[in-house]
């Protein structure tokens, strides 16, 4: 199978150099051609996107943009649409996630980008989204208007399908001329989305480009970074730091580093009736996307004192993970990933043999691992790919000192607790740096309009132009109707 990545308005395939990335999984393979642009081509493309956005995208109303995005999302939700069929066929091979995970994940994710959700998204950041279209009266007096970037560059990372769409749509909602750099691990979906948009509104399709360069390629990065006024970047801290060092000081740099998700289970949730379904939801969050997402749980803190002990609960989660593995096999791991899983698990096993240590569930060859520790342990990554450490604690309050030292890496936490405890613990988690608290089963599916990493994701992109009251009043003095 062959696929072509990217979306390059104004450039024909013949004039561009292509590199082929090979992917194989589930007994199939796909060759993906990714574009390698020369400096001149990149500069011309940047200018073209910027100019088209100025001439067209910025003249559209937000409502029109929402309508177009809604149409594009509807096509990708339609399982008979050729683009959707292509995504379902190809993405499992590219990412290694099983077909069902990709199908369910795409639908669940795209559903959060229909028109009502996009409107909610806008309302979350703008009391009056009309500021994106025209000057609006301000509470303090005068008028304000919000402008998106002239050229917004996204640097995407990772292979969790769909993550790029979220920042891509954010940029379009604020009418930014948009260039997205896809990750080598999943170079396709963003380009397809751009093509769908171009089919629906060809002129809009000219206002965005999807490009590729090898991550860390300083020469390519320098060209694009010199052109963008705003950069949204995803990746590990080392990659982000290298990128940031090359960003012109006049540009706005918004970064989303890697994060570590975790969950908290209160004693109240651990009775015989509730624990089973809860364990299933935990297993779902662990297995979905193989813990590759920043919102995926890597550690679980379980309170003692419920009907079921943390150990009972760990056993239930293990059973659910085993069941999940039958329905959704774990994706094939690279040698490095397999080594990471094995090293994590065996190290825990060895600790278990060195006196009062952890309990390790399952067999080394199982496609999942659960470890239970009875003593308090600080938050730490698991081996990923369905590996989970469960830490028994006396109360959920005891979790806070265990996570607080890692503020820079905190984002999502799932909480299973009664309302009063939920709000009390949420306050403590928020102080510690957690920005998203959700239910188990929803960790990998943030709700529409969420604030990724606790930021105002649309508001962060815009600059505000204010007409101060003085200008308004002074203008009155220059009107020809003045007496």
């Amino acid at each position: 199978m062959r696929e072509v990545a990217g979306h390059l308005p104004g450039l024909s395939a013949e004039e561009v150099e292509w590199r082929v990335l090979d992917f194989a999984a589930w007994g199939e393979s796909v060759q993906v051609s990714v574009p390698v642009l020369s400096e001149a081509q990149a500069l011309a493309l940047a200018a073209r996107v910027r100019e088209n956005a100025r001439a067209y995208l910025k003249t559209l109303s937000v409502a029109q943009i929402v309508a177009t995005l809604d149409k594009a999302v509807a096509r990708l939700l339609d399982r008979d649409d050729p683009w959707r069929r292509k995504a379902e066929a190809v993405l499992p091979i590219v990412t290694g996630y099983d077909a069902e995970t990709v199908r369910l994940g795409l639908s669940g994710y795209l559903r959060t980008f229909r028109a009502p959700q996009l409107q909610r998204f806008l309302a979350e950041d703008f009391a009056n989204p009309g500021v994106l279209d025209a000057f609006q009266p301000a509470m303090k007096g005068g008028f304000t208007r919000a402008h998106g970037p002239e050229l917004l560059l996204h640097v995407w990372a990772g292979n969790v399908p769909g993550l790029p769409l979220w920042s891509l749509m954010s940029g379009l909602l604020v009418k930014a001329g948009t260039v997205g750099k896809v990750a080598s691990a999943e170079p396709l979906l963003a380009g397809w989305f751009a093509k769908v948009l171009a089919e629906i509104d060809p002129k809009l399709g000219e206002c965005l480009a999807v490009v590729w360069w090898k991550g860390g390629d300083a020469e390519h990065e320098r060209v694009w970074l010199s052109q963008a006024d705003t950069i949204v970047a995803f990746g590990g801290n080392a990659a982000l730091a290298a990128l940031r060092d090359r960003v012109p000081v006049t540009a706005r740099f918004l970064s989303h580093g890697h994060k570590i998700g975790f969950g908290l289970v209160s004693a109240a949730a651990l009775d015989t009736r509730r624990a089973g379904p809860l364990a299933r939801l935990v297993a779902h969050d662990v297995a979905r996307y193989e813990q590759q997402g920043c919102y995926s749980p890597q550690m679980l803190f379980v309170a003692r004192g419920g009907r079921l002990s943390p150990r009972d609960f760990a056993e239930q989660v293990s059973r659910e993970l085993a069941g999940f593995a039958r329905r959704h096999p774990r994706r094939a791991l690279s040698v490095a990933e397999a080594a990471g899983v094995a090293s994590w698990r065996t190290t825990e096993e060895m600790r278990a043999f060195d006196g009062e240590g952890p309990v390790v569930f399952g067999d080394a060859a199982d496609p999942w691992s659960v470890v239970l520790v009875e003593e308090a342990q600080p938050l730490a990554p698991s081996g990923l790919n369905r590996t989970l450490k469960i830490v028994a604690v006396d109360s959920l309050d005891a979790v806070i000192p265990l996570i607080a030292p890692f503020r820079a890496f905190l984002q999502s936490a799932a909480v299973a607790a009664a309302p009063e405890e939920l709000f009390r613990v949420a306050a403590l988690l928020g102080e510690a740096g957690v920005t998203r608290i959700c239910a188990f089963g929803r960790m990998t599916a943030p709700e529409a309009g969420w604030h990724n990493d606790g930021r105002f994701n649309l508001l962060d992109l815009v600059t505000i132009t204010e007409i101060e009251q003085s200008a308004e009043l002074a203008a009155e003095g220059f009107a020809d109707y003045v007496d």
Partner: protein
Amino acid sequence: MVSRGKAWLDVTEAEIIEALLAFIDRDEASEAEFERMALDVFAYQFANNPPYRRFAIQRGRTTLTVRDWRDIPAVPITAFKDMTLSCTPPERAQRVFMTSGTTQGGVRGKSHHPTLAVWDRSMLVNFRARFMRGLERIEMGILFPDEEAMPNSSLAHYLALAKQECGTADSEGFIGADGLDLARLTAALERAQASGRPYALLGASYSFVHLLDALAAQGRRFALPKGSRILDTGGFKGQSREMGADAFYDALSAALGVDRSACINMYGMTELSTQFYDDGNAICPPVKSGPHWIRSRVVDPVSGRDLPEGSTGVLVHHDLAHFNCVSAILTEDAGIMVEGGFKLLGRVDGADSKGCSLAVAEFLKAARG
């Protein structure tokens, strides 16, 4: 061999040491002979190393069930960082070798040695065969701190032993408290070049990069006499700029006049008592192999099962000389079995996540600051 009539519980440390020294002194060993010795060493470690015994039992591998050396359970090297794996009380150790801690958030893995007799014999017999290649002694320049500066470094001990047992009297070390003593080293290289006698330069790979950079800055090159050789080990570890293997050996060859086929890379670990060598680096990656008391496998790290020859997996080494800790270790090195040994394909410890979730490697890096 330990006498067969003896119950495994009763094999003493002295007996296992004696058996191992005799085993190392043989010219070679068949797989069956290796297996017998390996099972004896496993029995000794199973009896005397409690955490390892529990690990083996959990894996369903006991002295009763293990019949094949390949079934001896391998311990991941990270375990050496978390716990003491020693058959004798650690306080009785004559020497404790520690990893540099550069890759694991500053935590250092430890290997306890109640005696260095086996370690030294293993090193010397193998070193003579693979590096000295028939020479009794050779003038050596050492590009690594000495044992006094780094008492817990197995490499410092290795190089000290090489210099003492196989170096001529005028051999010397060139890394001091202030780093590379370039003036003294270039003087030694000049003398060697003029003398016509072969010269050996041994040390950490990154020290060679520092040397290459210093020589390039001065525009200097040497043509060391025929028979001269180089031994580098350990990679760059962030201590120097990273160089590709071909660029590295081309540069060494050009700067010192030593053919790439005489540039030997040693692959060793703190968690082993035996080293692997290649037969020069004319072509990279070269085939690495060890002596008859160490055998390697390439496994699927999750299942621990052997992979067919030609598949890439993670290396497991069974080093009988590492008798006091555990002999079977699961490394963090990717490799592939080939005719005559294995090829080393780099480390697999730093797998990043494919998405945006934080993985262990980056977490440790951050913890280290």
